């Protein structure tokens, strides 16, 4: 029989640490993407602009998904 027990604070802290590690990696990737795209755009190379925008959007969606999970964790605690 499975019991849906809310996570303890220590467990939630561990989960948030893990999610934060993912979010930080994705944000650093986005920063690199932005600088590389700006460099290419100012250099007249237009081929990378839309693919880079798509990848950046995908990173944002992943981050937003993780944030949504965080809010769900908070809700189940109450």
């Amino acid at each position, binding site marked *: 029989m499975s019991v849906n027990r809310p996570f*303890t*604070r*220590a467990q*939630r*802290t561990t989960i*948030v*640490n893990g*999610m*934060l590690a993912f*979010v*930080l990696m*994705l*944000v650093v990737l*986005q*920063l690199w*993407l*932005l600088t590389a*795209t*700006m460099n290419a*755009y100012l*250099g*007249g*190379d*237009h081929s990378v*602009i*839309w693919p*880079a*925008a798509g990848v*950046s*959007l995908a*990173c*944002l969606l992943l*981050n*937003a998904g*993780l*944030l949504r999970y*965080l809010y769900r964790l908070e809700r189940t605690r109450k």
Partner: protein
Amino acid sequence: MTEQGREPLDVRIDSAAREGLTGTAPASIYRPLLDAEQVTVAPDGRPVEMQPAWRTDFPIDWPQDQYVERRDFMKFMVLTSLAFTVGQFWIAVRDWWRSRRHLTSGTRLASISDVPVGAARTFAYPTEHDPCVLVRPTAQTLVAYSQKCTHLSCAVLPQVTDGVIRCPCHEGLFDLATGRPIAGPPRRPLSLVRLDIRGDEIFATGVEDRTV
């Protein structure tokens, strides 16, 4: 109240203390225990009695503080992620807008007879802030480039007899036939203005920014 501090159990099945329970235990034993997470823990983990006086006045729940700060930092990072995505799409929209601006059905520049062989004339395209130069190296050839040097945007000057376009600021040289850099600091070709000859008239139909 009894001496043990507990209320005597009303044995009636519908009593308020039993709250519908069918057993004989009072409802209070089903109440959840005090949440351990609400108990303040000092940073060194020792009990409250062993803490300095100032900490009693300003208690810090260290694990809770860690949890909240990481949670809020994560929210801030997601906002940062949103800002980067907005920046990325801002570049994309700007690029799309610029490429749209360059799509025109044709802007009349001059008549072929207005440009003698070996001569050049300047014009502004696609806006009045984009100086360009139209050159006729041979009777059969017409080329047009942006007049901004790709090094530091000085105005370049065609030297038709030498077959080059020269930037006087830093002695940059571009090939007149292709607009590609051949000497000096510029590394990228001049932007090419696409031309369309309709009868005796010369029309500009677009600008091509190039990297190689």
